[in-house]
């Protein structure tokens, strides 16, 4: 009976470890059927994800951890990985080896099996290795390390079956004595001494935790939160600290200083790695050169034009492809709307309820969805394709110089790209920036880039005021306008980064390096479909969560009277003088203020403000016409575009910024900087326009 229940138990604690960008997440998705997003650049996964696969009636839970080069962490992401493997409920590890670059993967593997002997080596990217002429004697390496091995090609499902089998074997077998690295004698002795001291003072006996903590202390690397809690009684103990110090001093006499000790430890690892690779890995000896892809994308002549063209293409496709779904959605919602109205009338709904439900919530919500959803649903999959192919690291490479001159680093280019999708996700993406100073600069300037929520506003402004011709020419000129907007944002970001790096976030450029993995062919259909569904769903949810209450609030503002004008009119008139200074007017300003929850609703609010005949009428008319009817001119549109670009970030972004930095100061800057830029710029532009008599 006991065996039966053991069989039904879920096997947990299986970590999926490996260097960044070796296909861990692809493998994770393939095994578990989950939808962790993968992207062809290092730093994509920033959190652990858990998923389950079943085999022979048993279930196995695997944890996908962020890629790391070493379990002695240097950055927050690496800390996450180390924390799980060394202190989490991890019982075994599946280590993904990049067959094309085995030395680096094996180094991590050695570090891991030193503390966690229950491991399986999984050789991935064999197709790439073949292309590069690198051959790994998989079996030989397994024997050398006394570990089980398996080869996969993550994209081909057939190769997954043996992997699942080996994982099953791994978790069901007893812990083996695997080959471990033997560090030089003095270091091994020190590890033993520190381990026994730690165990004595804290009562913890698990070898993995003791050995890892001892090595961390010898490396003098910062212990993660978990470790500090677990070993508190040891770390705080005076006697322990004294012993640790004397052990360190002894080592310093042999290795000169802390650097020497760390180097001695790392060198043993690397030597062992090299030894194994020399024996079991063959490479062809042709000199590496830049591929055509890279020559084009990073060459002196073509790099910047290529990036601009790519941007233009993505924007043009977004605008063109979004047209039809928008029209269909509008027609659909109009049809449903009629039915809804009839239903309300039949139910004898009092006029106030009718107004609240139909005018307030329904019309605003559906208008936002039909106008805002299609562009977002198209932009994101396109961007995902760029990510998955491998363009983004090249962008960071190309843009590092200007960003470095601006006091930031190349990786900010990546977070800026992500901000084009959604500012909040761009802020989370800033985690890939190692230096805290540069990360803060990236976060504070993130909302200077236009997010997808601002695109529809820009597109409507472009289509109404800044285009020429008809048909595809209109769309092209809209795309060019958007491109120009983005260039303006980039310029503003560079300028503000420079200012921040000279004032609030002073410091020198940090160590920067970015890996440029070979371009990989993305699974087109899968990416498009999954991204489309993901994005559509999340936008819909956001629309409901934000636009519906906003619509209700707006309706209330139009219905509640102050004297004989609606509350909305009262507010807009109040803000008129301020608006005029900025080249706008009270309505637009109110729209921006009320649009704090989400940028998508700014233009709808403005239109409601202008339209005296009620919300429902406002939502069914073309926005461009209403704006023209309200007396908008090209200068107004310019100021509106500029202010839309540079104003306080949406509520989600502010919350995310706070969650990421836990600093009120940074969050405040995040809000104030773009607002200041927008206010000043609009005021100046408005002044220029009035002087020029436009």
């Amino acid at each position: 009976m006991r065996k039966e229940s053991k069989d039904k138990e879920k096997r947990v604690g299986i970590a999926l470890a490996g260097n960044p960008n070796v296909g861990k997440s692809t493998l994770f998705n393939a095994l578990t059927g989950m939808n962790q997003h993968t992207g062809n650049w290092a730093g994509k996964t920033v959190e652990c994800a858990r998923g389950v696969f079943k085999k022979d009636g048993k279930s196995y839970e695997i944890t996908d951890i962020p890629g790391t080069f070493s379990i002695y962490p240097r950055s927050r992401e690496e800390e996450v990985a180390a924390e799980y493997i060394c202190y989490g409920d991890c019982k075994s590890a599946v280590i993904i080896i990049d067959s094309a670059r085995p030395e680096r993967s094996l180094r991590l593997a050695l570090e891991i099996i030193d503390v966690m002997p229950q491991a399986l080596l999984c050789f991935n990217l064999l197709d790439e290795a073949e292309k590069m002429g690198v051959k790994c004697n998989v079996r030989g390496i397994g024997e050398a390390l006394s570990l089980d091995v398996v080869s996969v090609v993550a994209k081909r499902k057939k190769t997954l079956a043996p992997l699942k089998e080996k994982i099953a074997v791994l978790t069901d077998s007893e812990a083996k004595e695997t080959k471990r690295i033997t560090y030089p004698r003095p270091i091994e002795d020190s590890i033993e001494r520190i381990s026994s001291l730690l165990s004595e003072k804290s009562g913890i006996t698990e070898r993995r935790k003791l050995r890892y903590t001892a090595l961390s202390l010898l490396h003098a690397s910062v212990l993660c939160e978990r470790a500090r809690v677990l070993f508190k009684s040891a770390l705080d103990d005076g006697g322990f600290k004294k012993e640790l110090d004397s052990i360190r001093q002894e080592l310093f006499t042999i290795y000169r200083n802390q650097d020497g000790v760390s180097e001695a430890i790392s060198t043993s690892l690397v030597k062992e790695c090299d030894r194994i690779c020399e024996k079991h890995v063959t490479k062809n000896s042709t000199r590496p050169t830049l591929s055509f892809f890279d020559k084009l994308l990073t060459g002196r002549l073509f790099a910047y034009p290529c990036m601009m063209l790519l941007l233009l293409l993505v924007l043009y496709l977004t605008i063109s492809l979004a047209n039809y779904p928008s029209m269909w959605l509008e027609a659909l919602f109009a049809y449903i709307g009629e039915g809804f109205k009839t239903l309300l009338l039949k139910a004898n709904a009092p006029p106030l309820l009718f107004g609240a439900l139909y005018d307030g919530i329904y019309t605003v919500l559906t208008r936002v969805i039909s106008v805002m959803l299609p562009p977002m649903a198209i932009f994101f999959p396109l961007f995902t394709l760029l990510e998955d192919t491998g363009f983004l690291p090249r962008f960071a490479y190309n843009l590092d110089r200007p960003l470095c001159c601006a006091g930031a680093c190349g990786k900010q280019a990546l977070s800026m790209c992500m901000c084009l999708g959604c500012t909040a996700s761009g802020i989370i993406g800033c985690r890939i920036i190692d230096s805290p100073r540069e990360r803060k600069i990236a976060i504070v300037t993130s909302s200077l880039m236009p997010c997808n929520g601002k695109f529809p506003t820009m597109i409507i402004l472009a289509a109404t005021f800044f285009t020429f011709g008809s048909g595809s020419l209109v769309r092209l000129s809209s795309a060019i306008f958007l491109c120009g907007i983005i260039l303006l944002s980039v310029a503003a970001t560079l300028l503000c980064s420079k200012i921040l790096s000279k004032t609030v976030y002073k410091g020198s450029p940090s160590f920067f390096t970015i890996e440029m993995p070979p371009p990989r062919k993305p699974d087109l259909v899968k990416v498009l479909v999954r991204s489309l569904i993901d994005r559509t769903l999340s936008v819909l949810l956001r629309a409901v969560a934000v636009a519906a209450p906003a619509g209700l609030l707006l309706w209330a503002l139009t219905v509640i009277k102050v004297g004989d004008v609606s509350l909305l009119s009262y507010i807009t008139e109040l803000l008129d003088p301020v608006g005029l200074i900025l080249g706008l007017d009270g309505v637009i300003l109110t729209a921006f203020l009320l649009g704090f929850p989400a940028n998508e609703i700014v233009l709808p609010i403005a239109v409601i403000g202008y339209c005296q005949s009620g919300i429902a009428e406002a939502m069914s008319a073309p926005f461009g016409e209403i704006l023209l009817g309200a007396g908008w001119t090209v200068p107004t549109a310019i100021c509106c575009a500029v202010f839309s670009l540079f104003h306080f970030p949406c509520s989600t972004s502010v919350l995310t910024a706070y969650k990421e930095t836990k600093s009120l100061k940074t969050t405040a800057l995040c809000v104030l900087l773009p607002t200041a830029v927008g206010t000043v710029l609009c005021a100046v532009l408005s002044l220029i326009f009035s002087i020029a008599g436009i």
Partner: protein
Amino acid sequence: MEKKIKRLSQLEIGGCARVTKINSTSEIKRRFLDLGIGCGCEIFCVGKSPLGDPRAYVVRGGMLAIRRLDADKIEIESEE
């Protein structure tokens, strides 16, 4: 084989060299090691970015971008 001691930043495009020493803080040394750049390893310079800096290098099969500021810290002996 002529042996010249120089820095990585001086390695011309298409050139091949072996790392002999890394002159930097231990933190940066470890970062280099993470990427596979350690004493004795082979490194190739394959290109430079449009504005000249950083440059692209291939080491242990992986292509990386390294800034001139950091490449200055790596001493190499060129194998030409």
